[in-house]
């Protein structure tokens, strides 16, 4: 009977690095053989590697968690799905089924939501660049538009004249909520009086009906208190607007920015300690609302939560293609997925799980992607046991932003599948091939090659 084998490892002891557990100790080395009951190997066999896998169960569960946290505390809440976080049809459809409206920030996203069947009046149209034609469409179809700048007020007044209607609009505010850096580039600043000027301008134009306020204080906000400040300032401003100009503010859209349990680089503590629960956010927001609103007034609270809902529902399966020893002695692995499809690797350190038991001492290593580029680093330092070629790593959470910010650089983008609540596995985006990339290309006749 032969003994079990583990790959040989030697580690040099260095002061400051002499912690036998490292930051990913051997005994919590995580093995994941399946996602929602479907074996990782089976998924790869059928759909290839790398592969994005979404869990419908987790997605619905996360949404309901956020929804319950707010609806239990405030009577009038709308959730609007932030398309830019993940605009795959299937993902959006799940969330629309759950009752979310659509929050879009470009004419492309607007068109994508409409194509999916979302009625115009269930769309919130945000962003600093809304082409004129898209404003015409949005007003015609009754979308809610949150204005970003004075030019857009003028554009919308023109649309109003052209269509002979009085569009109902909101304005986006930016403000000091104690969050640094302050997102002051979007919307109208509250403290400087710019926001009030915008209201004056809308009132004096007489062609638009101001019915909403919008704000979005930042992203991956770890301090629930900031939302309390945001909400109080919005309510105060809403009443100023109502009392001075006679508009009725029907909705307060507080944006998103709630964090997921992802590990932001530069935040020392693990997400289970650093990231407050959604209930804490909901409690701050709703109690700030209830304590500052006038009796009997319950404007609609709109949330555009994206990351907090979809991030943890997404996994990426990737395969170890090669192992290397760097001159520094550090172990390096070449994976078949890199920053081309994992844009968020620049900011987050993913949870890494292995598809099988691998015995042996964890050693420091770096994970490289497949690109022939120096910046293609999935993790610049992690601790893994020596991995044989062909080992699958399961990276998570990757559900937010990756499948929208991924780029077609050098390689085809991989397939995306959704595991349904009953274990059905559906392909929701096919892996790309050459035809996807060359479809729009035109080669002038004179350049045709004759080899």
């Amino acid at each position, binding site marked *: 009977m032969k003994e079990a084998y583990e790959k040989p490892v030697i580690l040099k*002891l260095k*002061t*400051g*690095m*002499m*912690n*036998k*557990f*490292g*930051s*990913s*100790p051997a*005994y*919590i080395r995580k093995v994941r053989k399946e996602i929602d009951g479907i074996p990782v190997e089976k998924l790869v066999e059928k759909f290839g590697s790398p592969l994005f896998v979404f869990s419908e169960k987790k997605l619905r569960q996360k949404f309901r968690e956020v929804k319950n946290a707010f609806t239990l505390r405030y009577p009038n809440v709308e959730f609007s799905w932030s398309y830019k976080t993940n605009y795959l049809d299937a993902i959006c459809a799940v969330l629309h089924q759950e009752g979310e409206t659509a929050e879009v920030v470009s004419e492309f996203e607007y068109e994508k939501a409409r194509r999916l069947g979302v009625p115009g009046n269930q769309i919130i149209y945000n962003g600093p660049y809304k082409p004129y034609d898209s404003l015409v469409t949005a007003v015609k179809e009754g979308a809610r538009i949150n204005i970003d700048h004075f030019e857009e007020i003028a554009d919308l007044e023109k649309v109003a004249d052209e269509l002979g209607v009085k569009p109902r609009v909101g304005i986006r505010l930016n403000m000091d909520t*104690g969050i*640094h*850096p*302050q997102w002051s580039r979007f919307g109208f600043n509250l403290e400087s009086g710019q926001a009030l000027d915008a209201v004056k301008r809308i009132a004096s134009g007489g062609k638009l009906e101001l019915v909403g306020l919008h704000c979005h204080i930042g992203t991956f906000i770890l301090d629930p208190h900031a939302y309390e400040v945001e909400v109080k300032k919005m309510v105060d401003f809403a009443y100023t607007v109502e009392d001075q100009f006679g508009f009725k503010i029907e909705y307060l859209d507080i944006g998103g920015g709630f964090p997921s349990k992802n590990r932001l680089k*530069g935040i*020392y*503590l*693990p997400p*289970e*300690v*650093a990231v407050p629960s959604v209930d804490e956010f909901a409690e701050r927001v709703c109690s700030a609302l209830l304590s500052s609103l006038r009796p009997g007034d319950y404007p609609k609270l709109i949330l555009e939560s994206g990351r907090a809902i979809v991030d943890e529902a997404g996994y990426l399966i990737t395969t170890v293609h090669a192992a290397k020893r760097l001159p520094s002695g550090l172990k390096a692995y070449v994976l078949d997925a890199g920053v081309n499809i994992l844009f968020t690797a620049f900011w987050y350190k993913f949870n890494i799980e292995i598809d099988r038991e691998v015995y042996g001492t964890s050693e420091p290593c770096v994970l490289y992607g497949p690109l022939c580029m120096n910046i293609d680093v999935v993790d610049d330092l992690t601790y893994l046991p020596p991995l044989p070629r062909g080992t699958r790593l399961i990276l998570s959470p990757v559900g937010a932003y990756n499948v929208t910010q991924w780029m077609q650089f050098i390689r085809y983008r991989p397939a995306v599948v959704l595991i349904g609540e009953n274990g059905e596995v559906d392909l929701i985006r096919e892996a790309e091939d050459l035809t996807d990339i060359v479809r729009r290309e035109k080669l002038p006749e004179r350049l045709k090659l004759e080899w």
Partner: protein
Amino acid sequence: MYKVAVSGINAVDNPGPGVGIAKGLKESSLNVSVYGLAYDAMEPGIYMKWLFEKSFVMPYPSAGEEPFIDRLLYIKSNYGLDAVIPALDAELPLFIKSSSLLESYGVKTFLPTEEQFKLRGKDHLPEIAERIEVKVPETRIVTSYEELSKAVEELGFPVMIKGIFYKAYKAFNISQATSYFNSIVAEWGYPVIVQQVVTGEEMNVVGVGDGEGGHFGLVGIKKLWITSLGKIWTGVTVRNEELLSATERFVSEFKWRGAFEFECIVNNKDIYLIEVNPRFPAWVYFATGVGVNLPDRLLKAALGLEPERDWDYPAGRLYVRFTDDFVTDMSEFQRVVTRGEN
């Protein structure tokens, strides 16, 4: 016999409080055996067997809650563990969050609440100062060069440039201010605190709040000599009534629970609050040495025993730090490296 684990046993040029805490526990009226919790095999406390009966290498708090708690429970089940006195900022949030879980396993702590812990951010100082009626140096929170230059223009040189949790530099001109700003941002990120320089005596108070507005003793000191890293090397006890009553207001207003260090600049009747640390300082043995054994009292509070509350320490007791060394065998080191404990 109570078994108590203490962290921060890195008794180096920027020392953690662990060795001071252990020395206090050794002088306890209870029968206490002290374990060291280390994050690196080179932490000197591991080898100071006369203070730490055993030491354990811990997973970094950043590795997650589960491995950290598992490691503590490993210690509990193999060697026994009644209480932990954590002493490092980086691990406190994890201990605070897990305190009731640990309690359910019979591992006691006596820690500030999450809300209290957050007060350590220098951006919270104005709020604390207002509630306990002390002053704070005039402060601006900045995130850009533009805000920085505006802030120094308003405050006038010299100014203190500080990170929100760590690092503080005195700048005499804009180029110094900019370079300190850059180095803080590079190491700790935004925002950066710009503060007026106030003159007076730098005084600190160490104490343990009972969580109900009272405390188990306070000791006020003045640093007489500090190292280039700003660490106390010689100090003297003081009884400054303004300072001690401000500290008592702080404890009662925030119902502080557990250890704390209250750092101030005192100028006659004016108390300027500089920093609040939610743990023992590295010089905590000073309190033990003047008869107010705060580590022992904190342990008693954690164990549910009634700690002493007297704190009538004399002014004019001198604190002297000195360097020392000893020789041990490489096999000690080897065991820490291969087994993670010794």
